[in-house]
């Protein structure tokens, strides 16, 4: 038996990759500083309080990282409307018939580790598979929870209109206490996500050998030739601009 033929396909565009790694950095910094803020280490110091600003610095880093996290998310949302089909917002809502089918397939084959009798290349996703797509949707909602509760708590300390937009969150929940508890507990959601996410990326790379891990650095994945021949890689169509059909007619 000869080796299978693979083609290189450009999946993750540069903005997606930049988003991903900034996001990684922000979440790491936010979780670390967040836990320090929640339960600061015991310090013994001879210095006057006025000479040090340690905890203030930790909080500053937390707030600065939060702003970067937030604007990074905004840029990613923009890219969800302008990027390629794998970055498109539709790829994160796996509720169509085909995507639901893919969901059950991934659940059976990759999560519950059953073996398929006949290997169908169509089942191999090029971008996100449907289970992954759903996990990113959950992560996005989790991020929104952190943005709303975080800026809600922060809004009392600031004069800027942007965090002030979230002032209503605290009265809605009843008070700072419960908002802070939600903000703290949701952090664990990110930690659990990261564990599963990293594991499954390694799992796919190890089993399928299509460059799953390196794709988030270079942007490329390897796809079987037959898979590309089939037009419907994923049922998404590339976004068409309004002017395009006219140009085609002219051509």
């Amino acid at each position, binding site marked *: 038996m*000869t080796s299978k033929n693979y083609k290189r396909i450009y999946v993750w565009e540069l903005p997606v990759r930049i988003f991903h790694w900034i996001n990684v950095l922000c979440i790491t910094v936010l979780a670390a500083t967040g836990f320090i803020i*929640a*339960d*600061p280490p015991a310090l013994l110091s001879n210095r006057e*309080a*006025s000479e040090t600003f340690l905890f203030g610095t930790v909080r500053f880093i937390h707030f600065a990282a939060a702003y970067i996290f937030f604007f990074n998310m905004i840029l990613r949302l923009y890219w969800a409307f302008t990027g390629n089909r794998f970055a498109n917002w539709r790829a994160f809502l796996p509720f169509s018939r085909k995507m639901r089918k893919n969901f059950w397939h991934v659940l059976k084959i990759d999560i519950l*580790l059953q073996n398929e009798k006949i290997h169908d290349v169509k089942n191999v996703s090029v971008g996100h598979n449907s289970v992954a797509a759903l996990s990113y949707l959950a992560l996005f909602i989790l991020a929104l929870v952190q943005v709303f509760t975080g800026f809600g708590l922060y809004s009392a300390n600031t004069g800027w209109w942007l965090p002030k937009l979230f002032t209503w969150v605290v009265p809605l929940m009843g008070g700072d*206490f419960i908002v802070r508890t939600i903000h703290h507990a949701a952090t664990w959601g990110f930690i659990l996500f990261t564990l*599963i996410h990293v*594991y499954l990326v390694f799992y796919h790379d190890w089993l399928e050998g299509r460059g799953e891990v390196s794709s988030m650095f270079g942007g490329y994945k390897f796809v079987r030739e037959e898979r590309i021949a089939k037009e419907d890689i994923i049922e998404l169509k590339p976004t068409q601009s309004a002017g395009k059909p006219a140009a085609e007619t002219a051509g």
Partner: protein
Amino acid sequence: MAFERITQETYYESIIRQGYSRRDFMKFATYIAAYMGLETSMIGQVAKSLESTFRIPVIWEHYQECTCCSESFIRSDHPIVSDIILDKISLDYTLTLMAASGHQAEAAKHATMEKYKGQYILCVEGSVPLGDDGNYCCIAGRSAKDLLLEAAEGAKAIIAWGSCACNGCVQAAYPNPTEATPIHKIIKNKPIIKVPGCPPIGEVMAGIIVHLITFDRLPELDNLGRPKAFYAKRVHDSCYRRPYYDAGLFAETFDDQNAREGYCLYKVGCRGPMTYNSCGTIKWNNGVSFPIQSGHGCIGCSEEEFWDNGPFYERLTGLAGFGIESSADTIGKVAAGVVAGGLAVHAIAANMSKRRELKESIRSGKDTEKHFTE
């Protein structure tokens, strides 16, 4: 009748009649204007309003409460505060301090409610029990809810004194057996000023009443209905121990060296960073001190559900529904452990289940390697 008061008297007249000098009066006007956060140029307006305004009739109702609000009020810094509001001027009805009692007291209240319909201020101290048909709190043979609805009907505005009236306080803590309910959940059609705290600071209470007299309108309220002048900032933001917080210097226990040094009480459960009140600036007992200054963390008494928000002496408290001992972190750590264990099992299972697929790709990879030419 004996309990009928002179109504056509201004605040100033009654203060002078009480034996204060004009100088005392002007001092009071200056003092209260400062507490209300007004400019010095406004002192004249405060004084003028008190000189020319006839008293506003006040009905002060007591429901499920401990009277600490009234206690706080009559112990406020300046003697005129209690005199002006409680004794001389306003009160047509208050169970605790009025001379009349029984049928006379009730008659006085009804007389005020009829005579000044739409003009009087209703002050409510305490929450209203809705459970068991309101039987847990009855005054003069009627339930608190019944009395509140009646009194609120003709009120110009309602002041909800203290955490009981604002959010239910201790009697509304889980499981809230009497269904203690704050005022704003019962009365929807009247402006309500919430003055939370257990009790609220006396000067804050006086400041709000003087604001109503001076400007004839409600003070500016935040989106929880609390006057911004007193509840816009966290206790934390005006705390004199804040530099220790910013430096990361915390008391670990109440009897360690750090506590003796006066370090921040954040780690022993201080609720200052989550509590909106003026304790750090106005303070208590004539500005002598406030809890944090006395070495005890803030318990967040002016915040909703402060009794249910976990132990007062812990920074990280339990999550509702997960038991007392489990904080968010305990649950998170267990979940992370379970997930990590699950992933390890998955990895082993994958090696076994997918061994044929793996062997195949190793074989085909090796095959390609053989055909590799330098």
